[in-house]
């Protein structure tokens, strides 16, 4: 037992000496290396690591689809607030999509509460209808946040406005 301990101790000391020796060689070689780098970095490295991909799933749906007038549908508007005030379907929730900032978790929680209160089973998101469509992107984020059954309206608000039901609830 004592011998084993002694052997381990000896090999650990040797390992430490080797590591120190290797480090000294490394630093010495770096002085003469054609691609030498400073021993201590002063400027932060620009590391380009892609952000984790949102794994939300959103299904496209045509604005003319009859699902729009079904009960249990919850509408979310991904556009700017000014666009929302110009026109929006009754009951739609404004949740402006920002290309730079993620949706605040409290907004998601608030939306989830409203969905639950309305007993909605489908979430329909519409945006600017551009490429990329903010409605689709917001839908992906909402789905990634844990809300199920999320759809986005192809063509965005303009397509939706064109077919939005009249007072009788029928599509144009």
């Amino acid at each position, binding site marked *: 037992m004592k011998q084993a301990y002694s*052997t381990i101790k000896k*090999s*650990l000391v*040797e*390992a430490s*000496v*080797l*590591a120190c*020796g*290797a*480090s000294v*060689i*490394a*630093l010495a*070689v*770096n002085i003469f*290396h054609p*691609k*030498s*780098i*400073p*021993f*201590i*970095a*002063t400027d*932060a*490295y620009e*590391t380009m*690591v*892609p*952000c*984790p*991909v949102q794994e939300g799933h959103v299904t496209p749906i045509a604005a003319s689809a009859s699902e729009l007038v079904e009960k249990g549908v919850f509408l979310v508007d991904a556009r700017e607030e000014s666009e929302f005030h110009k026109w929006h379907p009754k009951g739609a929730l404004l949740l402006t999509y920002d290309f730079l900032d993620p949706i605040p978790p409290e907004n998601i929680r608030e939306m989830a509460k409203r969905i639950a209160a309305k007993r909605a089973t489908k979430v329909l998101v519409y945006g600017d209808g551009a490429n990329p469509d903010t409605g689709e992107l917001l839908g992906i984020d909402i789905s990634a946040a844990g809300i199920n059954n999320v759809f986005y309206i192809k063509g965005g608000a303009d397509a939706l406005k064109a077919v939005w039901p009249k007072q009788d609830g029928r599509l144009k």
Partner: protein
Amino acid sequence: MKPFLSWKGHRWVSLVLRIYLGGVFVLASLHKIAHPGAFALDVATYNILPLALINLMALCLPWVEIISGGLMVAGYKSRAASWLISGMMAMFMVALLIALANGLDMSCGCFASSSMSEEDAISHLTILRDATWLLMSIYILIFDRQPIGLETIIYGKRG
């Protein structure tokens, strides 16, 4: 247990493992030594070390790899080399686990720089590979008591 520990076949199994593992470490170090800047960027990408330690790590680690790998192959101070390789493998595994936990989609940087080895992306398989190498190193540490190689030639040990 004792007969198993003193089995003479361990020397030969260890010899194969030493040549393999030592070779891997020597090969892994070559690109890093030739391109310290690229390796420093790989180290920085893990986002674990403070800025002041990134270059020191990028400079010293490849030399520890090449020396321990070379000694492992040569069979000289192979136990000390095993300690170093085991320590490095444990360190690499911790770094990989942290990177995976942070959701980083990046190259391992184990054998070449990120830009040159896009297919060498980190995954749970990378950790499994490192764990296998760690086990090999531990095997050598425990069972290779009289290594076949330079040490036997110099000190005339017999198994």
